[in-house]
């Protein structure tokens, strides 16, 4: 296996919960609680999990858009958590992000032209003419007519805006793009357009994606390997086919079975979980999943299972597989 | 054969905004039969919610107005069948039906409960409106309904406030409110869209149970074909304010006729097989009213021909109960004009 492009070790992000008028810290939201994984060059690593499990926080923390509380992020052999502000700022050329909400992530007062050329300007790429040319080019690449550069975001539909978001991430030629649920706000027919576009671009520019989604079928479609998160922790991480054909973690199993399938012939038996996801500000002791786990054992209530490689390239954090 | 409880004929609901008239629902006809689950699918903005709100008489007015068609609500009353047009019925009568015989649940469980009143109050409010019961009885009904929708600690939860519950629980409460008067028809507008898959599974399960056990007819609005496959007996597919195809669930999912339905199903990433490239429908979803003549889908349709841009196709009955709005099938001999049938 090649060396990883991105290595995340023990990443943690705790948000302080403040209360009272003196804004004292009264607790913590453990949004990301000790997550480790690697992303290889040219790979798409999918991350799935239910709402609030810390997917976005992971993505943003590893880009240092949110300062991580703890842990290391090694990008291209360099520990970027140690970089100073200016160095980090320059590093951003190589690491970009696409956001979930195509409405909120574009500055409504800037023309597309400005939105797209700003990253070039910041990183001192090209002169005015060249930047203009590049903007048109990238617009064509993401499937929008070049003239649209003179429009404002509100003049586009959701799918078109997401294309602009992609173009913005792409224009500085990054190595890694964190895609934070780039298609979940889109209609089905538009979603497939964007997924195709993203796949095409990956091949064309040799990109590496960290693809965050909560839609298992989307992740399955696009990723090489998939990580499943639950309450700020990685529950399972495995190659695509492996995960779907042989899920280990009880959570993964129930997640997979809960997805309604549009094929009426494929009615499977459901594992319907009881209860709700606990709050990350007050996670259960031991294994975070034990409150809902159909196979819960005594040890699960006390000991947090380790995230270990169970079989080749298949990691899982569950006591059921700990003995091995 | 089962009888329709709710029959929507040529419904037209338009919005009169300062940017012009928007035909959000443009000539929609669907029927819901006793005890069945009818799915309505379609992409964002195609008029699903407005259709359901029209039934409830809750279209925000201004700017919205039902400008045409009828909504017939049929019920047995002492052996007699009685049918009322909800479009023309008196406001007061509508309020009697609403919440009692036709109930509705909404997409956003987080915002659909009044944050300032207890769960119990909000259920009791519905009960007391329609039934002559004492305070104590009403409270008991509330608790019973909470138990019915599978809420643990129902006795305590009645006195709690919505913010103390999770999204899934709130959606259960919404269902409890809707079910509080044992309605004949339950309209569910994307009841699980905002929920996580594991919670969605719980809610869908619950709704199926209610449908089976109470015989409540459900109009299930969704844009998730997976949910449709799970839940529905029949499906209507909407596109830009019009129903483009309708039929029983297997037919629509397995053998769709309309190019839009076909494209929609093909563009879904599949769980069971991994394809290299997804099919995608080119172009954008049009807003209602932006295409005035011709088939609304024509600009995105791979099989469109000249006529599609010039004439509005009618809804045609292809086979028993399977209708489709497309010129491609007009040549087939045994077609019946479904539009002509509806409302007759």
């Amino acid at each position, binding site marked *: 296996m090649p060396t990883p492009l991105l290595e995340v070790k023990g990443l943690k992000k705790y948000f302080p919960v403040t209360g009272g008028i003196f804004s004292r810290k009264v607790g913590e939201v453990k949004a990301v609680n000790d997550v480790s994984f690697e992303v290889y060059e040219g790979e798409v690593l999918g991350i799935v999990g239910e709402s609030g499990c810390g997917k976005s926080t992971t993505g943003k923390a590893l880009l240092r858009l949110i300062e991580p509380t703890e842990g290391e992020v090694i990008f291209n052999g360099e520990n970027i958590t140690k970089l100073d502000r200016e160095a980090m700022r320059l590093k951003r050329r190589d690491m970009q992000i696409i956001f979930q*909400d195509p409405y909120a*992530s574009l500055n409504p007062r800037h023309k597309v032209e400005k939105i797209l050329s700003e990253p070039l300007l910041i990183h001192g790429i090209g002169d005015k003419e060249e930047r203009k040319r590049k903007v048109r080019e990238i617009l064509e690449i993401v499937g929008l007519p070049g003239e649209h550069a003179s429009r*404002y975001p*509100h003049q586009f539909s959701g799918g078109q805006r997401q294309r602009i978001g992609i173009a913005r991430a792409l224009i500085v030629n990054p190595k890694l793009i964190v895609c934070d649920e780039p298609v979940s706000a889109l209609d089905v027919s538009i979603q497939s357009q964007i997924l195709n576009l993203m796949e095409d671009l990956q091949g064309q520019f040799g990109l590496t994606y960290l693809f965050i989604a909560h839609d298992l079928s989307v992740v399955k479609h696009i990723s090489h390997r998939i990580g499943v998160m639950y309450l700020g922790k990685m529950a399972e991480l495995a190659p695509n086919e492996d995960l779907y054909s042989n899920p280990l973690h009880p959570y993964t199993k129930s997640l997979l079975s809960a997805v309604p399938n549009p094929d009426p012939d494929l009615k499977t038996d459901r594992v319907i979980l009881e209860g709700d996801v606990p709050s990350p500000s007050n996670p259960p002791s031991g294994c975070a999943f034990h409150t809902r786990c159909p196979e819960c054992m005594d040890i699960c209530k006390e000991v947090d299972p380790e995230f270990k490689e169970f079989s080749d390239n298949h990691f899982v954090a569950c006591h059921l597989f700990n003995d091995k | 054969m089962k009888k329709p409880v709710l029959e929507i004929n040529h419904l037209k609901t338009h919005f009169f*905004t300062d940017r012009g008239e928007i035909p959000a629902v443009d000539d929609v006809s669907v029927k819901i039969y006793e005890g069945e689950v009818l799915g309505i699918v379609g992409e964002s903005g195609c008029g699903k919610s407005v259709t359901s709100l029209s039934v409830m008489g809750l279209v925000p007015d201004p700017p919205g107005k039902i400008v045409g068609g009828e909504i017939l609500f049929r019920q047995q009353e002492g052996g007699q069948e009685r049918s009322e047009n909800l479009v023309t019925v008196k406001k007061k009568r509508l309020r009697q039906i609403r919440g009692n015989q036709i109930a509705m649940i909404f*997409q956003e469980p987080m915002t659909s409960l009044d944050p300032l009143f207890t769960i119990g109050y909000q259920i009791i409010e519905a009960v007391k409106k329609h039934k002559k019961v004492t305070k104590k009885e009403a409270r008991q009904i509330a608790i019973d309904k909470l138990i019915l929708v599978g809420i643990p600690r129902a006795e305590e939860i009645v006195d709690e406030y919505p913010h103390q519950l999770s999204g899934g629980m709130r959606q259960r409460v919404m269902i409890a409110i809707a079910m509080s008067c044992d309605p004949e028809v339950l309209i569910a507008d994307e009841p699980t869209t905002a929920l996580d*898959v594991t919670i969605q599974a719980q809610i869908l399960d619950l709704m199926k149970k209610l449908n089976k056990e109470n015989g409540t007819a459900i109009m299930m609005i969704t844009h*998730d074909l997976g949910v449709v496959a799970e839940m529905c007996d029949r499906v209507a597919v909407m596109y830009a304010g019009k129903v483009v195809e309708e039929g029983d669930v297997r037919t629509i999912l397995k053998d769709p006729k309309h190019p839009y339905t076909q494209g929609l199903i093909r563009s*879904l990433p599949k769980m069971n097989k991994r394809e290299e490239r997804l099919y995608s429908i080119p172009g954008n979803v049009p807003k209602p009213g932006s295409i005035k003549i011709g088939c609304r889908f024509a600009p995105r349709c791979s099989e469109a021909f000249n006529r599609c841009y010039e004439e509005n196709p009618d809804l045609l009955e292809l086979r028993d109960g399977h209708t489709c709005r497309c010129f491609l099938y007009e040549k087939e001999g045994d077609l019946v004009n479904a539009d002509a049938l509806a409302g007759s």
Partner: protein
Amino acid sequence: MESVTPVKKQPMPGPENQEPHLTETESISPWKEAFWQLRKNKLALVGLFIIIFFIMIAIFAPFLTSYSYQTLNAADRLQGPSAQYWFGTDDLGRDIFTRIVYGARISLMVGFFAVTGALIFGSFLGILAGYFGRWVDMLISRIFDIMLAFPSILLAIAIVAILGPSLQNALIAIAIINVPIFGRLVRSKVISIRQEEYIMAAKAQGMKNGRILFHHVLPNSLAPIIVQATLGFGTAILEAAALGFLGLGAQPPTPEWGRMLSDSRQYIQSAPWTVLFPGLSIMLVVLGFNMIGDGLRDALDPKMKN
């Protein structure tokens, strides 16, 4: 299969989410969009008309009247409205119409300078507080709290007392009491816009903080500030009139409307027009600004309330 989490998607898309209704190549800035919106607002147009009317009056004052606003005419004291004196005369025999026409200059100027002053200082402090946060925010916010807990009219009176009564000083006092209003607004806008996703996007591109502040945060906070400034015009004019009424504003013979009111209030019985017209003028100008402000708010910033 899929299920969507529509984070910000409204269940009922309002008109603002409508598909662009324009030709393919046209580019419409949010400002233009707002302007269109404003043009449809009849009340705002009326307001605009009123203000333009008063501005014209102020500019062309000397051409509108043949009288002087300060020359006395003891013979024609307290004359009622007539063809000769449209709005009558005051107790010194001066034409009230003339004084009101010239007074428009004063009121508009007061509004303009007071708002500008308050805007500049308020924005500066608000940006400091909102952008640097921590103790800077704490300090500035507490100062704002204190200033807002003061009864503002008393504060203004005290400030004028220090500086001495004059139009200029009344202006300064009004600007000062309005500083915390703008300051708080700017602060809260800066804070809320900093949390927008496009700001994070800008950061993700490697943008420097300064650029983020000036190219992204500030332009996007502008709309509510403009709205507040417009409404602030009205408030400032009212406050100036109140100070004038207490004799703490413009000094005679300057035809300041509030001052005209207080000078003639004792004639309300015998010569009601001396009280009626200056008051009406104040009300109209302020009404004009409020109408525009309301319209602007609807057009620029539908979510901002009050």
